[in-house]
C-alpha cells in the first residue's frame, strides 16, 4: 500500500520535472567496484572530466549515528538514481555502517531519508573485542538490484548475525523477510550480484567460521557455498564475476596442495553452482605463505582483443595477468604475465604491498589500462616512465595491456605521487580517483610485537584520508581533497555516481564532493 503511494507521487513528479528526462544512462554505482567485474570503472560518467575536475569541492558531509566497531565504520555507499519516493524521484545513497546500521541518504542534499538498525538475532551472542580483523557487526558492503517496473530497487545487505536483508531503497522497508545467509560474527566481504544470485566471500575465520565462497539464490532463498580449504578469502570487494558468471576470488595465507584439495595462496575460479572451475597459485606460493604475503586482492575481469582477462595482486606487490580460459595454464602455476615487484622490497606483511582490489578501464583510443594501488615504499627497481617524486607511503600505478610478439604483457606507464596508504582507484571519463587512507597499518613493532595490532593503537596513530584525482593517461594530479576529510578510512572504498565522489570515514561521516556551482 505504501509503495503504491510512493510510485504515484513519483510518477506525478516525473510528469512535471524536465530534469528527469535524461538522454544517457545514469552513472549509478550499484555495487562495490561499480560492476560485477569489479573494474572500478564508471563508464557512464558525463559530468566530471579532466578539464573540470580541478573544480571539485565538498558538497556536503553528514555525520551518521553509526558507532565504529574496532577500525571499521562506514562502507562505500551504493548509489541509485531515479528512485521513486514520496517526494518524487531521488538519487539515493545506501550507506552501511559497522554497528548494523544502514541509511538511505538523499545525494542531492546529504539528508538522511531513512535509517535502519538490524537487531542482532543469532543464538550466539554478538562478538566483541575481535581486534581490527574481526570486528563483528555489519562488515559487508551492500549491493543494489535491478530496477523494478516502476523504478523501485532493492538493496541487499548482510547484518552481523549473518542474515540477508532485502530493503526498499526508497524507504528502507523490508521487501522480503530477512533470510539466513551465513554464520554470525563472520568477516564477509562485498556482495556481488549475478543473474539473481548474490555472492560473498569470508575470511579471517572470524567467529570461528570457515573461509568460503557463499551464494544466495534470490529465487529460492537458499544458500550454497564452496570451501577452498585454504586461507581466508579477503579480497576487499569480495569475488569478481566474469562475463560467463565465473567467480574469481583470492585465497589468503594457507597451504596450496591441490592433491589434498587445499587451495591456499591462490586465485580460485568458482562456477556459479559453487564448484571449483580452475585455480592459479604463483610458483613462489610457498614463500608467500611463509612470509604472510596473502593473495588478498579482489581481481578484476575485462575483455581486450577478444580475450577475457583476469588480473590480481597481493601483498607481495606483483600483478598477475591471467587468461580467463585457463588462469594458471596447464600446471596452474603459470599466468600469462607476471610483473616484477612494484613495492614491498622488504617483504613485509603489513603496511606494504597491494591491498583491496584492482581496477581497469579502456580509453577512447582502445588502450586497456590496469590500475593498482599499494602501500609503503616503491620498489627500488620499479621505475615507470612517468613518476612524480619519491614514494614512501604508497601510490597508484598504471599499466597498459600490450600484445608483444603474440604475448600479452603489462607495461608500466605511470606511478602517482606519494600517498599515505594508497587505496584502490576508480575511473571515470579518463580521470583516476584514489585516496590515501591515512590509516596506520603497522601491525607489529619491535617493542610490542603483534600486540601493536590493536585498534586503539592504530586509531591513535592514524591521520586523515585525502582523495586525489589523476589524469588517467599520465598520473598527473588534477585535484585533491586536502584537509576536507578529518579522519582516516579503514577498508573503505570510493564511489562515483553522476558527477559526485563519495567516501565514508572512520568517524562515521560520509563525504560527497562535486563541482563548484553545481
Amino acid at each position, binding site marked *: 500500500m505504501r509503495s503504491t503511494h510512493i510510485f504515484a507521487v513519483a510518477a506525478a513528479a516525473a510528469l512535471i520535472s524536465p530534469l528527469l528526462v535524461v538522454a544517457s544512462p545514469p552513472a549509478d554505482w550499484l555495487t562495490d567496484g561499480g560492476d560485477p567485474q569489479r573494474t572500478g570503472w564508471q563508464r557512464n560518467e558525463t559530468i566530471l572530466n579532466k578539464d573540470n575536475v580541478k573544480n571539485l569541492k565538498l558538497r556536503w558531509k553528514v555525520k551518521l549515528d553509526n558507532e565504529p566497531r574496532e577500525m571499521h565504520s562506514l562502507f562505500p555507499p551504493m548509489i541509485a538514481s531515479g528512485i521513486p519516493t514520496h517526494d518524487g524521484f531521488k538519487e539515493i545513497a545506501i550507506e552501511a555502517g559497522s554497528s548494523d546500521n544502514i541509511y538511505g541518504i538523499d545525494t542531492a542534499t546529504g539528508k538522511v531519508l531513512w535509517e535502519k538498525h538490524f537487531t542482532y538475532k543469532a543464538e550466539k551472542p554478538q562478538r566483541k573485542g575481535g581486534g581490527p580483523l574481526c570486528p563483528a557487526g555489519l562488515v559487508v558492503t551492500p549491493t543494489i538490484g535491478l530496477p523494478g517496473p516502476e523504478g523501485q530497487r532493492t538493496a541487499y545487505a548482510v547484518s552481523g548475525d549473518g542474515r540477508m536483508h532485502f530493503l526498499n531503497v526508497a524507504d528502507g522497508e523490508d521487501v522480503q523477510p530477512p533470510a539466513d545467509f551465513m554464520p554470525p560474527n563472520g568477516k564477509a566481504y562485498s556482495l556481488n550480484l549475478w543473474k539473481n544470485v548474490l555472492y560473498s566471500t569470508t575470511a579471517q575465520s572470524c567467529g570461528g567460521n570457515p573461509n568460503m565462497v557463499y551464494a544466495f539464490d534470490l529465487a529460492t532463498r537458499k544458500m550454497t557455498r564452496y570451501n577452498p580449504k585454504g586461507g581466508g578469502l579477503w579480497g576487499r570487494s569480495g569475488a569478481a564475476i566474469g562475463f560467463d558468471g565465473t567467480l574469481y576470488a583470492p585465497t589468503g595465507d594457507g597451504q596450496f596442495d591441490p592433491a589434498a584439495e587445499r587451495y*591456499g595462496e591462490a586465485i580460485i575460479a568458482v562456477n556459479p553452482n559453487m564448484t571449483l572451475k580452475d585455480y592459479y597459485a604463483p610458483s613462489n606460493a610457498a614463500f608467500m605463505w*611463509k612470509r604472510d604475503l596473502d593473495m588478498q586482492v579482489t581481481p578484476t575481469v575485462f575483455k581486450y582483443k577478444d580475450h577475457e582477462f583476469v588480473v590480481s595482486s597481493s601483498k607481495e606487490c606483483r600483478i598477475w595477468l591471467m587468461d580467463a580460459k585457463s588462469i594458471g595454464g596447464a600446471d596452474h602455476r603459470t599466468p600469462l604475465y607476471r610483473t616484477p615487484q612494484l613495492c614491498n622490497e622488504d617483504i613485509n606483511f603489513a603496511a606494504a604491498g597491494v591491498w583491496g582490489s584492482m581496477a581497469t578501464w579502456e580509453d577512447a583510443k582502445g588502450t586497456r589500462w590496469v590500475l593498482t594501488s599499494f602501500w609503503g615504499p616503491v620498489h627500488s627497481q620499479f621505475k615507470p616512465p612517468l613518476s612524480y617524486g619519491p614514494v614512501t607511503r604508497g601510490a597508484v600505478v598504471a599499466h597498459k595491456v600490450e600484445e608483444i610478439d603474440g604475448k600479452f604483457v603489462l607495461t608500466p606507464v605511470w606511478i602517482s605521487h606519494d600517498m599515505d596508504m594508497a587505496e584502490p582507484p576508480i575511473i571515470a571519463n579518463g580521470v583516476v580517483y584514489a585516496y590515501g587512507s591515512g590509516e596506520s597499518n*603497522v601491525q607489529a613493532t619491535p617493542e610490542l*610485537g603483534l600486540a601493536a595490532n590493536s585498534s586503539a593503537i592504530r586509531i591513535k596513530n592514524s591521520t586523515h584520508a585525502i582523495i586525489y584525482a589523476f589524469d588517467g593517461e599520465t598520473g598527473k594530479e588534477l585535484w585533491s581533497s586536502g584537509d576536507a576529510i578529518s579522519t582516516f578510512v579503514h577498508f573503505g572504498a570510493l564511489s562515483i555516481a553522476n558527477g559526485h565522489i563519495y567516501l565514508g570515514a572512520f568517524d562515521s561521516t560520509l563525504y560527497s564532493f562535486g563541482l563548484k556551482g553545481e
Partner: protein
Amino acid sequence: MKKTLRNSLAVLTLLAGGEAMFAQAIDWPTFGGDIERSGQGKSEIKITKDEVTKNFKLLWKMQQRGTPSLMAPLVLGRLIGYRGFKELAFFGGSDDSLYVMDADMDRLYWQTKFVPPINAPAPTAECPGGMTAMPSLIPVSVRRSHPSTRKRFEAGFGGPRSIYLISSDGMLRRVNVANGNESGMPFQIFPANSRVSALNIDEGMIYATTSHGCGGAGNGVWGIDLATPDPSTAPEVTTLMTGPANYAGIGGPVIGKDGDVFVQTLDGPNDPANGKYSNALLALEPKTLAVKGYFIDSSSGSAPKGDLNSVTPVTFEYKDHEVIASVSRDGHLNLLDEKSLAAQGDHKTPLAQSPRIPTGNDGGLWGSLTTWADPADKTRYILATVWGNASGRNGSIAAYKLEEKDGKTVFTPVWTMPNLIRPVPPVVIGGLAFVLSSGEGRKNAVLHVVDSLTGTPVWSTKNEITAPGNLTPLTVANGRVYLVTADSTVWVFGLPLEL
C-alpha cells in the same frame, strides 16, 4: 592454561591474513638445537633423502672479513616483526659482534657490535678472549612446557623475542631480535675476558660455565635468574665453583627433562667432600645449583692430548628413563641413569658402557655427542665424533645404537664414516646425518649427507666449499644447513625456495 590457549588463538586471528594456517617454522635456538644438546632436528619435515639427492645446493654464503671468527648460527624460524615475517639466522662473532641474516633472502637484516673491554689481554689457546659464549634464544619447547617462562620473558605468539648473549666484557645482554636494540640494561655477570661456555636457558634461568681461569673467573657453573621482578635490577646469580678441573666439550651445560643441569669436568684432583669434582659428571639442582649427584669417571689419567675425549654429554629418554650419554676420558661411551646419578649410588658404575671407541693411537672423541631415535621403531642411536689424533686427522663418525641383550643395555656399533678431517658433531634430521669434515690447511671443508641408519652416502658438497671449517658445529633448520669456515664465511646449503 585454557585462557592462555584462547588468548593465543585470538592473537593468531589478528594477523594480517587472519589465518592460523602458517607454514611450519623450526627454530635452532641453542647449541645442539635443544637444551638436551641432542643435535637432532626434531620437527624438521622438509629434508628428505629424495629431496636432498635431487635438489640440495648452495643457497647463499656470507663473509664477514672484519670478524676473526664466527660461531655456528642460531635460527629463529619465524619472527613476526615490524618488517614482516622473517626467518632469521644469528651469528655471534668473536669480536663481540652479532650478525643477523634473513635466511630466505640472503640479506643482512641487522648487525650490532658491543664495545670490547679496554686492555684485553692477548689471546691464547686457552683464553681466546672476545665473545666466547654461543648465545641462545629461549627454546620453544621450554616456552611451551613452562608457561611461566613465556609469561615472564617472552610475550608468546607474535610477541617480541630476545636473544641472550655474553659479550667479552662479561655483560649479559638481552637483544631484541626484531631490530638489534638491547631490551633493558646489560648486567655485569662475569669478569671481563672470561671464557664463558655456550648458554643454555630453561625456566627463566641462563646456565653457563667458566673455565681455564680466563679473566680471573674460576671453573664454575653459573645460573642467572632472569625472573627479577624489576628489569632494571641485576639478576640474581648463583655460582657453583667445582675446583681446578675444566669442563668437557663445546656445548656448555646440559639440561635434562626435569630441569636438572649437567656438566662434566676434566682432569684434576677429586675431592667431592670439599667441593672439588674432577673427571666427574655432575647433576645439579635447577636454580640453586646444589649438587644432586655425580658420577666419577674412573678412567681418569688416560686421556689423549688436546681436546680429545672432552665431550659435552647429552640427555635423552630411553625406555621410559631419563638417561645421559657421556664420554669417558679413555674414550668409552657411558650411559647413566639420571635418577641413580641423583640418588648417589657408588658414583662409578654406569648403566652401560661401550667398548673403547676405535680412534687410532693418539685419537679420541671430540666436541659433543649426537643422539636420535628412529621414529619407526624408537631405536636410540648415538653418534660420536672421532678424531684420529689431536690435529683431527683420520677422523670419523661412529654410530652406535642402544640394545637390550641378556637383560643389559649395550652399545652396538652400527656404522662408521671414515676419512674425515677434523669432523664436528653431526646433526641428524629426517633419517639423514649431516657430517662436516672441516678440513685443515689446504684441505677445505666438505659437507656430507649420509643415511643415518646405515651411513650410506647420499650427497656431498665435494669441492664447493673453498676454505676449511672453523670447528663450529652445524646448524639445521627449515631445509637449510649452515656451516662456518675459517675465513669467516657462512655457507648455507639446502632446498631452494622460490622467492
